[in-house]
Protein backbone atom coordinates (compact mmCIF):
# COMPACT_ATOMS: atom_id res chain seq x y z
CA UNK A 1 0.00 0.00 0.00
CA UNK A 2 2.67 2.43 1.15
CA UNK A 3 4.97 1.02 -1.52
CA UNK A 4 2.43 1.74 -4.28
CA UNK A 5 2.00 5.28 -2.95
CA UNK A 6 5.70 6.08 -2.83
CA UNK A 7 6.39 4.38 -6.17
CA UNK A 8 3.51 6.27 -7.76
CA UNK A 9 4.92 9.56 -6.47
CA UNK A 10 8.46 8.70 -7.57
CA UNK A 11 7.61 7.50 -11.08
CA UNK A 12 5.41 10.58 -11.66
CA UNK A 13 8.13 12.94 -10.47
CA UNK A 14 9.21 15.75 -12.78
CA UNK A 15 12.79 15.10 -11.63
CA UNK A 16 12.69 11.39 -12.51
CA UNK A 17 14.96 11.77 -15.51
CA UNK A 18 17.62 13.76 -13.69
CA UNK A 19 20.81 11.79 -13.01
CA UNK A 20 20.33 9.92 -9.68
CA UNK A 21 24.01 10.17 -8.80
CA UNK A 22 23.99 13.89 -9.67
CA UNK A 23 20.96 14.45 -7.43
CA UNK A 24 22.60 12.50 -4.62
CA UNK A 25 25.81 14.55 -4.85
CA UNK A 26 23.75 17.76 -4.82
CA UNK A 27 21.86 16.56 -1.72
CA UNK A 28 25.12 15.70 0.09
CA UNK A 29 26.70 19.07 -0.76
CA UNK A 30 23.61 20.98 0.38
CA UNK A 31 23.42 19.02 3.64
CA UNK A 32 27.13 19.49 4.38
CA UNK A 33 26.97 23.22 3.55
CA UNK A 34 24.03 23.59 5.91
CA UNK A 35 25.87 21.64 8.62
CA UNK A 36 29.06 23.70 8.33
CA UNK A 37 27.25 27.04 8.50
CA UNK A 38 27.00 29.06 11.69
CA UNK A 39 24.76 31.65 10.09
CA UNK A 40 21.03 30.97 10.21
CA UNK A 41 20.64 32.31 6.67
CA UNK A 42 22.37 29.29 5.07
CA UNK A 43 19.99 26.60 6.43
CA UNK A 44 17.07 28.89 5.52
CA UNK A 45 18.37 29.08 1.94
CA UNK A 46 18.91 25.28 1.92
CA UNK A 47 15.32 24.89 3.17
CA UNK A 48 14.05 27.09 0.34
CA UNK A 49 16.06 25.03 -2.21
CA UNK A 50 14.85 21.73 -0.66
CA UNK A 51 11.22 22.84 -0.47
CA UNK A 52 11.33 24.17 -4.07
CA UNK A 53 12.81 20.88 -5.32
CA UNK A 54 10.24 18.90 -3.29
CA UNK A 55 7.33 20.95 -4.69
CA UNK A 56 8.73 20.75 -8.21
CA UNK A 57 9.33 17.00 -7.90
CA UNK A 58 5.83 16.27 -6.59
CA UNK A 59 4.19 18.80 -8.95
CA UNK A 60 3.15 21.04 -6.03
CA UNK A 61 1.18 18.20 -4.45
CA UNK A 62 2.68 16.91 -1.22
CA UNK A 63 1.54 13.28 -0.92
CA UNK A 64 0.02 12.14 2.38
CA UNK A 65 2.93 9.78 3.13
CA UNK A 66 5.47 12.59 2.70
CA UNK A 67 3.36 14.85 4.91
CA UNK A 68 3.17 12.16 7.60
CA UNK A 69 6.93 11.60 7.42
CA UNK A 70 7.57 15.34 7.73
CA UNK A 71 5.13 15.67 10.65
CA UNK A 72 6.58 12.75 12.63
CA UNK A 73 10.16 13.83 12.07
CA UNK A 74 9.41 17.48 12.91
CA UNK A 75 8.03 16.40 16.30
CA UNK A 76 11.22 14.43 17.08
CA UNK A 77 13.39 17.37 16.02
CA UNK A 78 11.37 19.75 18.17
CA UNK A 79 11.83 17.57 21.30
CA UNK A 80 15.57 17.28 20.61
CA UNK A 81 15.91 21.04 20.19
CA UNK A 82 14.22 21.62 23.55
CA UNK A 83 16.93 19.44 25.14
CA UNK A 84 19.67 21.46 23.39
CA UNK A 85 17.95 24.63 24.60
CA UNK A 86 18.30 23.54 28.22
CA UNK A 87 21.78 22.00 28.19
CA UNK A 88 23.77 24.48 26.06
CA UNK A 89 25.97 27.12 27.61
CA UNK A 90 25.74 30.85 26.77
CA UNK A 91 26.98 34.27 27.74
CA UNK A 92 23.67 35.73 28.96
CA UNK A 93 20.95 34.08 31.00
CA UNK A 94 17.58 34.65 29.35
CA UNK A 95 15.33 32.70 31.66
CA UNK A 96 15.64 30.77 34.88
CA UNK A 97 13.05 28.76 36.77
CA UNK A 98 12.08 25.50 38.42
CA UNK A 99 9.87 22.71 37.13
CA UNK A 100 8.76 19.90 39.47
CA UNK A 101 11.52 20.95 41.85
CA UNK A 102 14.23 20.78 39.18
CA UNK A 103 16.00 24.02 38.34
CA UNK A 104 16.58 24.96 34.69
CA UNK A 105 17.92 27.87 32.72
CA UNK A 106 17.85 29.11 29.14
CA UNK A 107 20.84 31.00 27.78
CA UNK A 108 21.29 33.02 24.59
CA UNK A 109 23.77 30.38 23.35
CA UNK A 110 21.23 27.59 23.95
CA UNK A 111 18.47 29.46 22.14
CA UNK A 112 20.79 30.25 19.23
CA UNK A 113 22.02 26.66 18.84
CA UNK A 114 18.53 25.15 19.27
CA UNK A 115 17.14 27.48 16.57
CA UNK A 116 20.07 26.71 14.23
CA UNK A 117 19.66 22.94 14.70
CA UNK A 118 15.87 23.19 14.26
CA UNK A 119 16.12 25.11 10.97
CA UNK A 120 19.01 22.92 9.77
CA UNK A 121 17.12 19.68 10.49
CA UNK A 122 13.94 20.84 8.77
CA UNK A 123 16.00 22.03 5.79
CA UNK A 124 17.77 18.65 5.68
CA UNK A 125 14.44 16.83 5.72
CA UNK A 126 13.08 18.73 2.72
CA UNK A 127 16.31 18.17 0.75
CA UNK A 128 16.31 14.41 1.52
CA UNK A 129 12.61 14.06 0.70
CA UNK A 130 13.09 15.89 -2.62
CA UNK A 131 15.61 13.17 -3.50
CA UNK A 132 13.42 10.34 -2.17
CA UNK A 133 10.34 11.52 -4.10
CA UNK A 134 12.22 11.67 -7.40
CA UNK A 135 14.55 8.66 -7.35
CA UNK A 136 13.30 5.08 -7.61
CA UNK A 137 15.35 2.64 -5.54
CA UNK A 138 16.49 0.66 -8.65
CA UNK A 139 17.94 3.96 -9.97
CA UNK A 140 19.69 4.48 -6.62
CA UNK A 141 21.18 0.99 -6.92
CA UNK A 142 22.36 1.87 -10.43
CA UNK A 143 24.01 5.00 -9.03
CA UNK A 144 25.75 2.81 -6.45
CA UNK A 145 27.13 0.63 -9.24
CA UNK A 146 28.40 3.76 -11.03
CA UNK A 147 30.60 4.53 -8.02
CA UNK A 148 31.88 0.94 -8.06
CA UNK A 149 30.00 -0.35 -5.04
CA UNK A 150 29.88 -4.15 -5.55
CA UNK A 151 26.77 -5.34 -7.33
CA UNK A 152 25.94 -7.74 -4.49
CA UNK A 153 25.33 -4.75 -2.21
CA UNK A 154 23.39 -2.68 -4.74
CA UNK A 155 21.13 -5.66 -5.47
CA UNK A 156 20.67 -6.21 -1.76
CA UNK A 157 19.47 -2.59 -1.50
CA UNK A 158 16.78 -3.25 -4.14
CA UNK A 159 15.72 -6.50 -2.51
CA UNK A 160 15.50 -5.03 1.00
CA UNK A 161 13.40 -2.16 -0.36
CA UNK A 162 11.03 -4.49 -2.21
CA UNK A 163 10.66 -6.98 0.65
CA UNK A 164 10.28 -4.22 3.27
CA UNK A 165 7.06 -3.02 1.68
CA UNK A 166 5.90 -6.57 0.99
CA UNK A 167 6.29 -7.36 4.69
CA UNK A 168 4.72 -4.02 5.68
CA UNK A 169 1.61 -5.02 3.74
CA UNK A 170 1.57 -8.41 5.51
CA UNK A 171 1.99 -6.60 8.83
CA UNK A 172 -0.92 -4.29 8.05
CA UNK A 173 -3.16 -7.27 7.21
CA UNK A 174 -2.16 -9.18 10.35
CA UNK A 175 -2.55 -6.09 12.54
CA UNK A 176 -6.07 -5.43 11.23
CA UNK A 177 -7.05 -9.10 11.66
CA UNK A 178 -5.73 -9.14 15.24
CA UNK A 179 -7.55 -5.89 16.06
CA UNK A 180 -10.82 -7.33 14.74
CA UNK A 181 -10.40 -10.27 17.14
CA UNK A 182 -9.79 -7.88 20.10
CA UNK A 183 -6.17 -8.95 20.13
CA UNK A 184 -5.05 -5.60 21.55
CA UNK A 185 -7.58 -5.57 24.40
CA UNK A 186 -5.59 -5.10 27.60
CA UNK A 187 -1.84 -4.87 28.16
CA UNK A 188 -1.25 -8.65 28.42
CA UNK A 189 -3.09 -9.26 25.14
CA UNK A 190 -1.17 -6.45 23.47
CA UNK A 191 2.15 -8.06 24.39
CA UNK A 192 1.04 -11.51 23.29
CA UNK A 193 -0.48 -10.29 20.01
CA UNK A 194 2.50 -8.09 19.15
CA UNK A 195 4.89 -11.00 19.75
CA UNK A 196 2.76 -13.39 17.71
CA UNK A 197 2.56 -10.88 14.87
CA UNK A 198 6.37 -10.54 14.95
CA UNK A 199 6.73 -14.34 14.82
CA UNK A 200 4.04 -14.63 12.14
CA UNK A 201 5.83 -12.02 10.10
CA UNK A 202 9.13 -13.85 10.48
CA UNK A 203 7.56 -17.15 9.40
CA UNK A 204 5.82 -15.43 6.47
CA UNK A 205 9.16 -13.88 5.49
CA UNK A 206 10.73 -17.37 5.44
CA UNK A 207 7.84 -18.62 3.30
CA UNK A 208 8.24 -15.65 0.95
CA UNK A 209 11.97 -16.46 0.71
CA UNK A 210 11.23 -20.06 -0.24
CA UNK A 211 8.68 -19.07 -2.86
CA UNK A 212 10.84 -16.26 -4.28
CA UNK A 213 13.82 -18.61 -4.47
CA UNK A 214 11.88 -21.24 -6.42
CA UNK A 215 10.35 -18.59 -8.72
CA UNK A 216 13.77 -17.05 -9.44
CA UNK A 217 15.43 -20.41 -10.04
CA UNK A 218 12.71 -21.21 -12.60
CA UNK A 219 13.85 -18.03 -14.40
CA UNK A 220 17.55 -19.07 -14.40
CA UNK A 221 18.46 -16.81 -11.47
CA UNK A 222 22.21 -16.78 -10.95
CA UNK A 223 22.35 -14.04 -8.33
CA UNK A 224 22.11 -11.07 -10.69
CA UNK A 225 19.28 -8.62 -11.30
CA UNK A 226 19.91 -6.88 -14.63
CA UNK A 227 18.38 -3.41 -15.28
CA UNK A 228 17.12 -2.76 -18.80
CA UNK A 229 15.83 0.81 -18.36
CA UNK A 230 18.87 2.66 -17.12
CA UNK A 231 18.69 6.18 -15.68
CA UNK A 232 20.75 9.08 -17.02
CA UNK A 233 24.45 9.01 -16.32
CA UNK A 234 26.19 11.75 -14.40
CA UNK A 235 27.50 14.64 -16.52
CA UNK A 236 29.96 17.48 -15.87
CA UNK A 237 27.03 19.79 -15.09
CA UNK A 238 26.04 17.53 -12.21
CA UNK A 239 29.52 17.89 -10.74
CA UNK A 240 29.67 21.65 -11.32
CA UNK A 241 26.24 22.51 -9.88
CA UNK A 242 26.80 20.93 -6.42
CA UNK A 243 30.32 22.40 -6.13
CA UNK A 244 29.08 25.84 -7.19
CA UNK A 245 26.15 25.61 -4.76
CA UNK A 246 28.53 24.65 -1.96
CA UNK A 247 30.88 27.56 -2.70
CA UNK A 248 27.98 30.04 -2.89
CA UNK A 249 26.53 28.77 0.38
CA UNK A 250 29.97 28.97 2.02
CA UNK A 251 30.36 32.59 0.88
CA UNK A 252 26.81 33.33 1.98
CA UNK A 253 27.68 31.99 5.43
CA UNK A 254 30.64 34.39 5.70
CA UNK A 255 28.64 37.38 4.42
CA UNK A 256 25.55 36.82 6.56
CA UNK A 257 27.19 36.12 9.91
CA UNK A 258 25.35 38.15 12.52
CA UNK A 259 22.41 39.05 10.26
CA UNK A 260 19.93 37.16 12.39
CA UNK A 261 20.71 37.49 16.10
CA UNK A 262 18.62 35.38 18.40
CA UNK A 263 18.44 35.89 22.14
CA UNK A 264 20.36 39.16 22.13
Amino acid at each position, binding site marked *: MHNHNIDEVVYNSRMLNWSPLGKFILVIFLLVASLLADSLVVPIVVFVIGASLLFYSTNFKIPKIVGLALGGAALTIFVGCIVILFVTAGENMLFQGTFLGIGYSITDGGLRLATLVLVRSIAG*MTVMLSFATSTPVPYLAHAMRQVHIPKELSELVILIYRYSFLLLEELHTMWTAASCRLGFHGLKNRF*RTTSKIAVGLFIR*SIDITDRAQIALQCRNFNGEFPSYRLPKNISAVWIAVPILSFILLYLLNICTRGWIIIGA
Partner: protein
Amino acid sequence: MHIMEGYLPASWAALWYIIAMPIVAYGAIKLIKLLREKPELKITVALSGAFIFVLSALKLPSLVGGSSSHPTGTGLSSALYGPAITAVLSTIVLLFQALLLAHGGITSLGANVFSMGIAGPAVGYVVYKTMRKAKFGIAPSMFATAALADLVTYIVTSMQLALAFPADVGGFLASFVDYLGIFAAVQIPLAIIEGIIFAIFADYLMSVRPESFENCKIRLRRKKSAPESD
Protein backbone atom coordinates in the same frame (compact mmCIF):
# COMPACT_ATOMS: atom_id res chain seq x y z
CA MET B 1 15.19 7.32 18.42
CA HIS B 2 17.70 8.12 15.67
CA ILE B 3 19.74 11.31 15.56
CA MET B 4 18.04 13.56 13.03
CA GLU B 5 19.55 15.22 9.97
CA GLY B 6 21.41 18.43 10.82
CA TYR B 7 21.55 17.62 14.51
CA LEU B 8 25.20 16.75 14.92
CA PRO B 9 27.93 19.33 14.26
CA ALA B 10 29.99 18.56 11.13
CA SER B 11 33.08 17.44 13.08
CA TRP B 12 31.13 14.88 15.15
CA ALA B 13 29.16 13.68 12.14
CA ALA B 14 32.45 13.08 10.29
CA LEU B 15 34.06 11.36 13.28
CA TRP B 16 31.19 8.86 13.65
CA TYR B 17 31.42 8.11 9.93
CA ILE B 18 35.16 7.45 10.34
CA ILE B 19 34.52 5.13 13.29
CA ALA B 20 31.54 3.27 11.80
CA MET B 21 32.59 2.82 8.20
CA PRO B 22 35.55 0.43 8.67
CA ILE B 23 33.29 -1.91 10.66
CA VAL B 24 30.54 -1.68 8.04
CA ALA B 25 33.17 -2.24 5.32
CA TYR B 26 34.38 -5.36 7.16
CA GLY B 27 30.79 -6.60 7.37
CA ALA B 28 30.26 -5.78 3.68
CA ILE B 29 33.38 -7.75 2.68
CA LYS B 30 32.12 -10.72 4.72
CA LEU B 31 28.66 -10.40 3.21
CA ILE B 32 29.95 -10.05 -0.39
CA LYS B 33 32.16 -13.12 0.10
CA LEU B 34 29.19 -15.07 1.44
CA LEU B 35 26.91 -13.96 -1.41
CA ARG B 36 29.53 -14.75 -4.06
CA GLU B 37 29.93 -18.25 -2.66
CA LYS B 38 26.19 -18.75 -2.22
CA PRO B 39 24.16 -16.32 -4.39
CA GLU B 40 20.99 -18.13 -3.39
CA LEU B 41 21.35 -16.66 0.12
CA LYS B 42 20.75 -13.16 -1.25
CA ILE B 43 16.99 -13.44 -0.77
CA THR B 44 17.32 -14.69 2.83
CA VAL B 45 19.73 -11.92 3.80
CA ALA B 46 17.55 -9.29 2.09
CA LEU B 47 14.52 -10.52 3.99
CA SER B 48 16.44 -10.21 7.25
CA GLY B 49 17.10 -6.56 6.39
CA ALA B 50 13.46 -6.07 5.45
CA PHE B 51 12.49 -7.70 8.75
CA ILE B 52 14.57 -5.11 10.68
CA PHE B 53 12.90 -2.32 8.67
CA VAL B 54 9.40 -3.66 9.33
CA LEU B 55 10.05 -4.30 13.03
CA SER B 56 10.84 -0.64 13.44
CA ALA B 57 7.32 0.04 12.13
CA LEU B 58 5.81 -2.18 14.88
CA LYS B 59 4.30 0.07 17.53
CA LEU B 60 4.97 -1.29 20.99
CA PRO B 61 2.81 -0.60 24.05
CA SER B 62 4.69 1.65 26.46
CA LEU B 63 4.18 1.81 30.21
CA VAL B 64 4.84 5.55 30.21
CA GLY B 65 1.84 7.85 29.75
CA GLY B 66 0.16 5.77 27.03
CA SER B 67 2.93 6.61 24.57
CA SER B 68 4.30 4.08 22.11
CA SER B 69 7.65 3.33 20.51
CA HIS B 70 9.24 0.68 18.31
CA PRO B 71 11.88 -2.06 18.66
CA THR B 72 15.24 -1.82 16.93
CA GLY B 73 15.14 -5.48 15.87
CA THR B 74 18.93 -5.65 15.72
CA GLY B 75 19.22 -7.85 18.84
CA LEU B 76 17.42 -10.67 17.07
CA SER B 77 19.37 -10.13 13.88
CA SER B 78 22.73 -10.22 15.67
CA ALA B 79 21.74 -13.42 17.52
CA LEU B 80 20.74 -15.07 14.24
CA TYR B 81 23.31 -13.69 11.79
CA GLY B 82 26.10 -12.10 13.84
CA PRO B 83 27.05 -8.43 14.36
CA ALA B 84 29.07 -7.88 11.15
CA ILE B 85 26.21 -8.72 8.78
CA THR B 86 23.78 -6.86 11.07
CA ALA B 87 25.94 -3.71 10.71
CA VAL B 88 25.58 -3.79 6.91
CA LEU B 89 21.85 -4.53 7.03
CA SER B 90 21.34 -1.75 9.59
CA THR B 91 23.20 0.72 7.36
CA ILE B 92 20.88 -0.03 4.43
CA VAL B 93 17.79 0.08 6.66
CA LEU B 94 18.88 3.38 8.27
CA LEU B 95 19.48 4.90 4.82
CA PHE B 96 15.93 3.92 3.79
CA GLN B 97 14.50 5.25 7.03
CA ALA B 98 16.30 8.56 6.49
CA LEU B 99 15.25 8.95 2.87
CA LEU B 100 11.75 7.48 2.91
CA LEU B 101 10.51 8.26 6.43
CA ALA B 102 12.68 11.30 7.30
CA HIS B 103 13.70 9.26 10.35
CA GLY B 104 17.42 9.83 10.95
CA GLY B 105 19.60 11.55 8.37
CA ILE B 106 22.40 11.26 5.86
CA THR B 107 25.00 13.35 7.69
CA SER B 108 24.02 11.65 10.98
CA LEU B 109 24.06 8.19 9.35
CA GLY B 110 27.53 7.35 10.72
CA ALA B 111 26.44 8.07 14.30
CA ASN B 112 23.17 6.14 13.90
CA VAL B 113 24.94 3.17 12.31
CA PHE B 114 27.40 3.09 15.20
CA SER B 115 24.70 3.13 17.89
CA MET B 116 22.02 0.96 16.27
CA GLY B 117 24.02 -1.16 13.86
CA ILE B 118 27.29 -1.76 15.69
CA ALA B 119 27.27 -1.08 19.46
CA GLY B 120 23.80 -2.52 20.24
CA PRO B 121 24.16 -5.68 18.11
CA ALA B 122 27.75 -6.31 19.31
CA VAL B 123 26.69 -6.24 22.96
CA GLY B 124 23.60 -8.29 22.11
CA TYR B 125 25.72 -10.90 20.34
CA VAL B 126 28.18 -11.23 23.23
CA VAL B 127 25.30 -11.56 25.72
CA TYR B 128 23.52 -14.13 23.55
CA LYS B 129 26.63 -16.27 23.05
CA THR B 130 27.64 -16.08 26.73
CA MET B 131 24.18 -16.99 27.97
CA ARG B 132 23.78 -19.87 25.53
CA LYS B 133 27.21 -21.19 26.52
CA ALA B 134 26.16 -20.96 30.17
CA LYS B 135 23.20 -23.24 29.24
CA PHE B 136 20.51 -20.59 29.64
CA GLY B 137 17.27 -21.28 27.75
CA ILE B 138 16.52 -19.62 24.42
CA ALA B 139 13.81 -17.35 25.90
CA PRO B 140 15.90 -15.79 28.73
CA SER B 141 18.88 -15.48 26.37
CA MET B 142 16.77 -13.67 23.79
CA PHE B 143 15.22 -11.48 26.49
CA ALA B 144 18.64 -10.31 27.66
CA THR B 145 19.94 -9.94 24.08
CA ALA B 146 17.03 -7.82 22.82
CA ALA B 147 16.73 -5.73 25.99
CA LEU B 148 20.47 -5.01 26.24
CA ALA B 149 20.91 -4.35 22.51
CA ASP B 150 18.09 -1.82 22.78
CA LEU B 151 19.45 -0.21 25.96
CA VAL B 152 23.00 -0.01 24.64
CA THR B 153 21.74 1.62 21.43
CA TYR B 154 20.13 4.40 23.46
CA ILE B 155 23.04 4.76 25.90
CA VAL B 156 25.39 5.22 22.93
CA THR B 157 22.95 7.69 21.32
CA SER B 158 22.90 9.69 24.59
CA MET B 159 26.69 9.61 24.66
CA GLN B 160 26.89 10.83 21.06
CA LEU B 161 24.51 13.71 21.79
CA ALA B 162 26.30 14.62 25.04
CA LEU B 163 29.66 14.67 23.27
CA ALA B 164 28.24 16.99 20.60
CA PHE B 165 26.36 19.20 23.06
CA PRO B 166 28.18 19.28 26.42
CA ALA B 167 26.42 21.13 29.22
CA ASP B 168 27.32 24.59 30.49
CA VAL B 169 28.06 23.29 33.98
CA GLY B 170 29.46 19.77 34.27
CA GLY B 171 30.32 19.40 30.59
CA PHE B 172 29.93 16.00 28.91
CA LEU B 173 28.91 14.10 32.06
CA ALA B 174 26.11 16.47 33.03
CA SER B 175 24.78 16.50 29.48
CA PHE B 176 25.06 12.68 29.26
CA VAL B 177 23.03 12.33 32.47
CA ASP B 178 20.44 14.79 31.10
CA TYR B 179 20.04 12.85 27.83
CA LEU B 180 20.03 9.51 29.64
CA GLY B 181 17.37 10.82 32.02
CA ILE B 182 15.15 11.92 29.16
CA PHE B 183 15.58 8.61 27.30
CA ALA B 184 15.33 6.47 30.47
CA ALA B 185 11.68 7.38 31.10
CA VAL B 186 10.71 5.74 27.82
CA GLN B 187 13.66 3.48 27.01
CA ILE B 188 13.99 1.35 30.17
CA PRO B 189 10.35 0.19 30.01
CA LEU B 190 10.68 -0.14 26.23
CA ALA B 191 13.84 -2.28 26.48
CA ILE B 192 12.07 -4.57 28.98
CA ILE B 193 9.02 -4.77 26.71
CA GLU B 194 11.21 -5.49 23.67
CA GLY B 195 12.97 -8.18 25.71
CA ILE B 196 9.66 -9.78 26.74
CA ILE B 197 8.33 -9.67 23.17
CA PHE B 198 11.45 -11.28 21.72
CA ALA B 199 11.53 -13.88 24.51
CA ILE B 200 7.95 -14.86 23.60
CA PHE B 201 8.99 -14.60 19.93
CA ALA B 202 11.97 -16.96 20.42
CA ASP B 203 9.92 -19.40 22.50
CA TYR B 204 7.16 -19.50 19.89
CA LEU B 205 9.64 -19.71 17.02
CA MET B 206 11.35 -22.67 18.70
CA SER B 207 8.02 -24.50 18.85
CA VAL B 208 6.97 -23.79 15.24
CA ARG B 209 10.30 -23.37 13.37
CA PRO B 210 13.09 -24.82 15.52
CA GLU B 211 15.35 -25.04 12.46
CA SER B 212 15.71 -21.22 12.47
CA PHE B 213 17.84 -21.47 15.60
CA GLU B 214 19.24 -24.87 14.64
CA ASN B 215 20.76 -23.31 11.51
CA CYS B 216 22.60 -20.82 13.72
CA LYS B 217 23.78 -23.60 16.02
CA ILE B 218 25.04 -25.64 13.07
CA ARG B 219 26.86 -22.57 11.75
CA LEU B 220 28.50 -21.98 15.12
CA ARG B 221 29.44 -25.67 15.45
CA ARG B 222 30.97 -25.63 11.96
CA LYS B 223 33.08 -22.64 12.93
CA LYS B 224 34.25 -24.40 16.07
CA SER B 225 35.00 -27.68 14.33
CA ALA B 226 36.87 -26.05 11.43
CA PRO B 227 40.32 -25.90 13.12
CA GLU B 228 40.02 -29.57 14.15
CA SER B 229 39.38 -30.67 10.57
CA ASP B 230 42.44 -28.70 9.43
